[in-house]
């Protein structure tokens, strides 16, 4: 269950402020795509438009099209709730529900909307998702403990387990490792490598080594100055972006000359 994302001439506004201007790109299924760029260049904002999470922010709206296997995300009558059920998201800071146990956290998405699931099926799904997130061995003996009792890296993998438990088509990750230590980061990166075989993964990262380690394609976003909209500068295979970028700004950024 992995789908192609095609973005056509997308503009993102916060009320009247144009935050991201004219982005067009295509993301292939079963691949990892990294968004890099300086802070405030709109990469997180753009990521959120891929599952309509930007609509949570008052005044945010988009122009243009996002096609998921040809279906427009912003077509008339498309329910954002259903969109988000098919496009999972992992956030910058781990956010397991503190009032739920580890098991309940994993199954949170599945039990939404009163979807009925038998106990044995739920157990199987919880185990499968936690195994998928490389967390099973660490938590199998304490599934009834609160999710907040885990370490930061474990919590983030719990969030990934929660996201993949609903078998989404696409997995969006907004700087998933920025609050984690190097060991946990490595665990998540290994996990991304494994998840690639089943999902289309888009990851925003500030860490260029991470982008070069995990991604197949990389998109570089930049901003001309404060108050100006963010733009997609260059989008290509990760190797090309990091070794032979065609745009000077990209080369400056990936070589650490600015940003």
């Amino acid at each position, binding site marked *: 269950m992995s789908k192609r994302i095609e973005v056509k001439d997308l503009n993102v506004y916060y009320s009247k402020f144009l935050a991201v201007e004219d982005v067009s790109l295509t993301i292939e299924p079963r691949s990892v795509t990294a968004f890099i760029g300086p802070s405030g260049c709109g990469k997180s904002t753009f990521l959120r438009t891929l599952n309509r999470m930007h609509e*949570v922010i008052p005044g945010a709206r988009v122009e243009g099209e996002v096609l998921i296997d040809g279906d427009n995300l912003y077509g008339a009558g498309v329910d954002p709730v259903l969109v*988000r059920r098919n496009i999972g*998201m992992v956030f910058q800071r781990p956010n397991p*529900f503190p*009032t739920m146990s580890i098991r309940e956290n994993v199954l949170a998405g599945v039990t*939404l909307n009163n979807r009925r699931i038998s106990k044995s099926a739920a157990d199987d799904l919880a185990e499968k998702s936690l195994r998928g997130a490389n967390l099973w061995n660490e938590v199998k003996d304490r599934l009834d*403990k*609160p999710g907040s*009792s885990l370490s930061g890296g474990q919590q983030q993998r719990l969030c990934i387990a*929660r996201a993949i438990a609903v078998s989404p088509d696409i997995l969006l990750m907004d700087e998933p490792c920025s609050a984690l230590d190097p060991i946990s980061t490595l665990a998540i990166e290994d996990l991304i490598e494994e998840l690639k075989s089943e999902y289309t993964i888009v990851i925003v990262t500030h860490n260029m080594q991470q982008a070069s380690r995990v991604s197949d394609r990389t998109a570089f976003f930049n901003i001309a100055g404060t108050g100006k909209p963010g733009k997609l500068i260059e989008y290509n295979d990760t190797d090309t972006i990091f070794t032979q970028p065609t745009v000077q700004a990209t080369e400056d950024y990936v070589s650490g000359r600015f940003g």
Partner: protein
Amino acid sequence: MSTPAVAQAPNAHPKPVQRLADRVFSGAALTAGSLILATLAAVAAFLVMQSIPAVTTDPNDISILSGQNFWSYVWPLVFGTVWSAAIALVMAVPVAIGIALFISHYAPRRLAQGLGYVIDLLAAVPSVVFGLWGANTLAPAVQPFYSWLTENLGWFPLFSGQASGTGRTILTASVVLAVMILPIITALCREIFLQTPVLHEEAALALGATRWEMIRIAVLPFGRAGIISAAMLGLGRALGETMAVAMVLSSSGAITVALLTSSNPSTIAANIALSFPEAYGLNVNLLIATGLMLFAITLVINALARYIISRRKEFSGAN
């Protein structure tokens, strides 16, 4: 193996540096804390000392008791107090949570602000006004409805019996109480709901939760302890409310769950207010003893609420 440099210190427990500001502040905090305890202890001591004669004296020497013993006098009052407050709470809490959710998560910002002010204003209305409204406006207005209920749903224990002709029943008193405790519960719930971490709300939404589902899995569980605390504050007010109940309720001292009849239990606070002007001698002690009962009820209920809150402490998100 080299020993750490700390071993040089001759004193095994060096005194930490004490700063003046720290000491002043901790002293002030300690004083404030002890003051609360001292006040509470003083009130409890007063109640207990004054109550003893009422329980130990021969009931025939206390005119209000007119021969019956203390417990059979106080029991209907305890029942009436808890019963009316419980009904009020059952009516007020869902409405309060609804209003608070509307303000915090549904209403446009401007409307939410205005609504918030109105709610706070409601909390500032004196209870005497609510009492007047309840006795003179609400009671006659609901009386036909009560008659209809007793005629058509009389098989249901709460609605059994002959409907009161005045409408000044325990249900009317409870409605007035509910209106009175609504603002405080709403205001507290609203503040708690606004504190829900955006992170958790987004986690729910990103899983494909509708707004109501988001509230159910992120907002309400997070606010659980706060909702209980808010309800307890409301309940405290309902239990101790004097004027409004005294004015609205026409009581006969009967113990019954029937809400609509003219035989209603009174409440402790209202009974004290109504009986006190004519009380003398041991009667005063008797009324104070009923006050002690109210004190004890409040204490038990609050302890119960604390217990409920602490039961799922590790899941509260506060760790």
